[in-house]
């Protein structure tokens, strides 16, 4: 008991950098503040909070997803399901956010460094997630059938989930919602006199 509370006290002292001299504490806090401030700006520009939600708009923060968005929006699933209903696991909050973080991390790395392929395909990790989500809604339909050997996926046959095909050529001039502005409204309007 005593040991635990002593350790907690030490952690608290270190978080506040108490063992250091005042000058060092001020310098480290200032540097940390600068980095944190810029991180907030970058998060704002990147529309980062949207990733916490299930809004489909979050997926087109990244422009390569425009055709996926446009074909989904005009397809039958556009009336009933959002991106995350199929592309994020629904086995619990922790699994959902862990999956989002892993996928999002890879996507932002790929897109920032211009490594994106011309044709996007499902990653190996995404396949079982989507399959489970197909069954989450449509499970009743296939309850009487036996899954075929070789791990058939629903979309091996039902290839038209994103409209006729999800591709650049199926959405030649797709309109997409505009991203929210990176600046702040009052900065655009100017302060009242």
């Amino acid at each position, binding site marked *: 008991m005593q040991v635990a509370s002593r350790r907690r006290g030490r952690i608290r002292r270190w978080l506040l950098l108490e*063992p250091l001299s005042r000058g*060092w504490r001020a310098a480290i806090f200032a540097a940390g503040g600068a980095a944190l401030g810029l*991180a907030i700006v*970058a998060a704002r*520009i*990147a529309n980062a909070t949207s990733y916490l939600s299930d809004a489909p708009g979050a997926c087109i923060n990244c422009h390569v997803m425009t055709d996926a968005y446009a074909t989904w929006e005009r397809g039958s699933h556009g009336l009933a399901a959002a991106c995350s209903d199929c592309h994020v696991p629904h086995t619990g909050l922790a699994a959902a956010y862990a999956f989002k973080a892993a996928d999002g991390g890879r996507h932002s790395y790929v897109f920032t460094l211009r490594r994106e392929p*011309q044709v996007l395909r499902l990653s190996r990790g995404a396949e079982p997630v989507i399959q489970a989500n197909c069954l989450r809604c449509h499970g009743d339909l296939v309850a009487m059938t036996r899954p075929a050997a070789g791990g058939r996926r629903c979309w091996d046959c039902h290839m038209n989930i994103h409209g*006729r095909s999800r591709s650049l050529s199926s959405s030649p001039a797709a309109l997409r919602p505009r991203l929210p502005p990176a600046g702040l409204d009052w900065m655009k309007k100017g302060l009242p006199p």
Partner: protein
Amino acid sequence: MSLSTPAATPSGRPPRWVGPALLALVAAVVVLLGLLAASIMERRWEAQQPALIVRPLAEWEPDNAAWGENYPREHESYLRTRGATTRTKFGGSFPRDYLDEDPLLVVLYGGSAFSKDYRQARGHYYSVQDVAATKRVGPAAVGTCWTCKSTDVPRLMAAMGAKEFYAAKFDDLRPQVAHPIGCQDCHDPRTMTLRITRPALRDALAARARRPEDAAHQEMRSLVCAQCHAEYYFREGTHLVFPWAKGLSVEEMIAYYDEHNFTDYTHAVSKAAIVKAQHPDYELYASGIHAYRGVACADCHMPYRTEGAVKFTSHHVQSPLLDVAVSCAVCHRWSEEEIRARVEVVQAKTAGAKASAEKALAAAHFDVAAAAQAGSADADLAGARRLIRHAQFRWDYVASSNGMGFHSPQEAMRILGEAMKEAQESRLLAARLLARRGVAAEPKHPDVSTREKAAAVVAAFAEGRPPSLLP
């Protein structure tokens, strides 16, 4: 003093190196965050401003580089048609002499210039150079031969009138033709809307009560190609006409040519009146499944690409097999290897049928010549020669089209099947005529196994000193 606990010195002061390290660390974090923010802002900007007009274009601007200032991505991809080394299993863009590859062509085209020079044209970038280099275009050539070769043509036609342009001498127009196939041929310089600049297609559509202005954008993405990648002939020696008045199928074209009594050349061996088919790419495609599904030429040959946040049309016009991922795989979501193998199976079958039709046609030309040598009158030979005329046009309709039948696999095989049937029917007629003259044995067909041997045989027939084909 331990490195892992630098701050734990008795005085509460960390060691010296911590200051610079902290500075470097924070600087690195701030720089990376700043770069990320800048990258995101650049992509946002890219997505909103795909075109930046730095130079307004003149109405008939022929210079592709001038257009390229406004549309750098499209122009840069267009410049890649300079690559002349690409190969697919049956095509590609590399220096290639069809007559060396297939000596039977020398026989089938015997009596026309195609029998002397028939090489693969390279990419769009070389259109002016390649038409000036072919031996098929001689001193007698007319302005019509420039029609599909240069962005200077719409300007010249606007200034001279299409009729006068066609009637001019090829060599007289040469100084005014400089820029290869490019932007002006398909685009309105002010709006970039697709437009038809060549009167032959406009007239052909009008004959079918259609106007390009009524075509939807997706249809225009094929029609701009159809301006040139179509069957045509020169009416009255100079006027460029598509034989579409009855329809686009091979039967309707044959009926059109028969009705207009049009002949490109009299065959050197069989004396059949031959119509040379000229790459009816659009027509063959129009009968295929991709056309039925509304897929345009540009969808496969000029696929959309993304570059960062910008989506643009690749103007590197080429075989889709050279970039299966962006052309086929956007709809057919299998592996590239599987797609390519599937296409090559279709093409190999067409190539096999095409080769059979060629052999049957060459045999038919010699059999009919043998019947003539045995003393059959022209009136008796007319039926067999007419069958050859039709059979050869059918074969050529597929053979001279790009894509080795893939534009419409079933139709290509049907046409080649009909070509073989008609060629064999003409041989049957010739055999009967020979039998009537007491020749029961098979005629002796000369050796045409190399280009040189085939050319010598054709020349002997053309010069009126043919070898005897009678057994």
